[in-house]
C-alpha cells in the first residue's frame, strides 16, 4: 500500500452482511473506536456480500462474480479495508486469490486488496499499534477463538491483548477456547445434529469458565453461541470485540 505519510489513516469499512442486517450496533462500535483512535472512516455504500456463503457451498462460479464486484468497490489503494469478522477477512485476504488464480488482472487486484485488508482487532494492534483503546467494562470475560481468524489469519494474541487492556475486566481463558463452535455457515443447517453437539461442548466450556460475558471477533460464531444460550436460558452475555472496546468510550 502506498505510504500514507504521517497523515491520518483512512479506513474503508467492510461491513459483513450479518453485521449489516442483524447486528448494526457492531458496525457502529467499530466506527466509534476507530474515530477515537484518530482514523478517518468511510463506508463504500455499494458493498453487499463478499461471496463467502457461495464459495463455501461449492458455488465458486457465483462466488467469483461477487468477488469481482467486491474488488471493484474496494479499489482505493489509499485506504485500509477493515472488517469485523475473521471469516469474511479470510475470504478476501486468502480465498479471493484462490478463486481468481487463473485471471491475471483479478489476481493482481486481489493481491493488492489482500495486503491492505485487516480484521478489526488485528488492525488495531498490528497497524495502529494500540492495545488499550481506553474502554472500561466491568465483568468476567472469556474469549472464543473463531476458526478462520485463528487458523487462516493466525491471530491469537491480538484480541486477547485488547480485551485484557479494558479497564475493569477480569479475563478468564475457557477450556475449549480454540474448538469450533459448530457454526460453519451452511454446515449449521445441513448437519444440525452435529453442529449442536459441537456447540453444546462449547457452551459447557463457557459456563464452566465462570465468565458472565463471552467475546469474539465474528458475529457468525456469536450468533450461533447466543442462539443456543438464549434457548437454554443461560445468562451469559455475548459481545463482539468492537462492542466491548466501545464500552464507555
Amino acid at each position, binding site marked *: 500500500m502506498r505510504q500514507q505519510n504521517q497523515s491520518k489513516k483512512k479506513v474503508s469499512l467492510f461491513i459483513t452482511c450479518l453485521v449489516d*442486517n442483524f447486528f448494526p450496533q457492531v458496525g*457502529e462500535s467499530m466506527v466509534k473506536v476507530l474515530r477515537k483512535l484518530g482514523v478517518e472512516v468511510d463506508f463504500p455504500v455499494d458493498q453487499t456480500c463478499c461471496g463467502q456463503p457461495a*464459495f463455501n457451498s461449492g458455488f465458486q462460479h457465483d462466488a467469483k*462474480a461477487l468477488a469481482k464486484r467486491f474488488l471493484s468497490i474496494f479499489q482505493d489503494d489509499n485506504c485500509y479495508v477493515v472488517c469485523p469478522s475473521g471469516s469474511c477477512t479470510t475470504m478476501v485476504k486468502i480465498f479471493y486469490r484462490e478463486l481468481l488464480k487463473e485471471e491475471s488482472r483479478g489476481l493482481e487486484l486481489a493481491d493488492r486488496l489482500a495486503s491492505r485488508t485487516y480484521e478489526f482487532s488485528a488492525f488495531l494492534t498490528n497497524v495502529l499499534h494500540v492495545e488499550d483503546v481506553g474502554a472500561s467494562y466491568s465483568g468476567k470475560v472469556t474469549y472464543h477463538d473463531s*476458526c478462520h481468524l485463528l*487458523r487462516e489469519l493466525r491471530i491469537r494474541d491480538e484480541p486477547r491483548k485488547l480485551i485484557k487492556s479494558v479497564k475493569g475486566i477480569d479475563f478468564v481463558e475457557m477450556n475449549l477456547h480454540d474448538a469450533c463452535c459448530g457454526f460453519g*455457515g451452511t454446515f*449449521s443447517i445441513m448437519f*444440525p445434529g*452435529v453442529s449442536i453437539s459441537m456447540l453444546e461442548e462449547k457452551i459447557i466450556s463457557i459456563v464452566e469458565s465462570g465468565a458472565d460475558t463471552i467475546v469474539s471477533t465474528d458475529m457468525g460464531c456469536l450468533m450461533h453461541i447466543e442462539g443456543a444460550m438464549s434457548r437454554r436460558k443461560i445468562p451469559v452475555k455475548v459481545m463482539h470485540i468492537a462492542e466491548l472496546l466501545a464500552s464507555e468510550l
Partner: protein
Amino acid sequence: MEIKKLEFKKQSSTALTDQNLRKALRNTTDRFRASRKRAYDELEGFEDLRNRAREIKKETIENLPIYLGMLEGNVIKTGGKVHWAQDGEEACRIIVEIARENGVRSVVKSKSMATEEIELNHALEEAGIKAVETDLGEYIIQLAKERPSHIIAPAIHKSKDDISRLFSEKLSIPYYTEPEQLTRVARERLRSEFLSADMGVSGVNFAVAETGTIVVVENEGNARLSTTVPRVHVAVMGIEKVIPRYGDLSIFLPVLVRSATGQKISTYVSFITGPKRKSDMDGPEEFHLVIVDNGRAKILASEETRESLYCIRCGACLNICPVYRQVGGHSYGWVYSGPIGAIITPQLLGAEKAPELPFASSLCGACKDVCPVKIDFPKVLLELRKRVVEGENKDGRGGEAGLLERLLVRLWRISMESKTAYSLLSTLSYFLQFPWLSKNRKLSSLPYPFSEWTNDRDFPAVAKIPFRKRWKEISKI
C-alpha cells in the same frame, strides 16, 4: 464389491444418539490429543520436521513413477516379487493367487488400511482361506464383523463392556470384565494362529525406494510375528506410501509416531528388505509386495487435490476434528474417516458415491494445524465441494446440487449483485419475519429449511435499520 452411496447425515444422526460411543470418542480423542501435544512440545524443531516431511512427500508424489520404479527394481533385487493392481479386485485376485500357489489354508494379518480398502478378508474367505486379524483392535472388529472406526485405533468406538460381551459370545468364554483377562484370551487364541498360518499379510507404513525396504510401525508385536513366522509374506500398499531414501525415515518415523499416539517411537518398528536370506535364522521364504492404485492415479492427476496423497495415516486429524469427535468413524461410511476420510473417500470412490462428505466439516481447519505433512484440508474440501456442485461442467450446472438449491443460490447472487436488490431483500426480510418474532425479539420457530436452525437455537431478528441506513447519520458526525 459394489459400494452404495454413503450417507453421512443419516449415519451421523444415529451416532449422535449413542451416548456410550460419544463418551468413548471424547475420552480416547482427548487422550491422543494430549499425548500428541506433549510429544510436539517436547521435541524442539518438530515444526521443521513437519515442513521437511511435507517437502519430501511433495517431491515423491510429483515424481511418483520414478520412485515406484526404483522401489520395484530394488525389491526384485533383494529377492522379492512386485505386483501391480489397478483396483481392489485385482489386488485381491493377486493375493488369492499367491495363496493358492503356495497351498495356503490360513492367513494371519497385521493391521492394514489398504487391505480394509480392498476388502481382502472377504476375498480370502470366498476362496476358502481363513484370515485372522492379529492386531487386538482389528481382531475385535473382525469378531464383530464391523469396519474400523479409526485409523490407528480401529475399535475406538467400543466400550470395555461391548468387548466383554463380544468375546463371551463369539469365543465361547465366560464374561470377563478385566481388560487383562480379555487381552490374555486374545493373546492365547492368536498365538496358535501365528504358529499355524502359512501366509502373513501386512500393510506398509513406508516403502523405501532406494533400498526396497518396507517399514511397519506397531505397538503390539503382531505385525512382526505376521511378517516373520509364516512361510510367505505379502505386504500391501497404496502407491503413495513410497519414500525416496532410507534417511528420510529419520523424519517420517518421529512425525508419524508422535502425531499418532504421542510416543517418541512405537514399541516395534520392522524394516523388511526382501525374503529370508541364507544366513538368516528365520523369516519368510517368499516376499511379495502388492502395490495398489485403486483410484489414486486420479488423485495424482489433479493439481488441486494431489496433496491428499501426502497422508501418512497417523490419525491426528481424526483426534482433533470436532465433527469426528461427535459422530465417530462409522458415520463416514467407508474405510477412512474424519477429515482424511472426508477428502480421500470422495476421490477414491467418486464424488457421486459420497457427495455429503466434503460438506461434513465446519472448515475449522484444526486438521490442517495438526497434520504432520500439513495437508491443506480446507482447501481440498472446498475444491471437492465445487466438484460436487459443478459436476463435470465448469459453469455451475450438472453436478449433485439440486435444482432448488441452484435456483436459490442464483437468486441470492442476483440480489447481492445490486445494491438496490440487496437493500430491498433486507427490508423485505425485516417485514417478513414478523409472524415468527417472539417476545424476546428472537426468531424461535422458522419454517424449513431454517427450522434446522431454530429447532434448537434462536435466530436473531433482522434489524429495523441496517448499518447501511445508519451510515447516513454516522457519517455526518
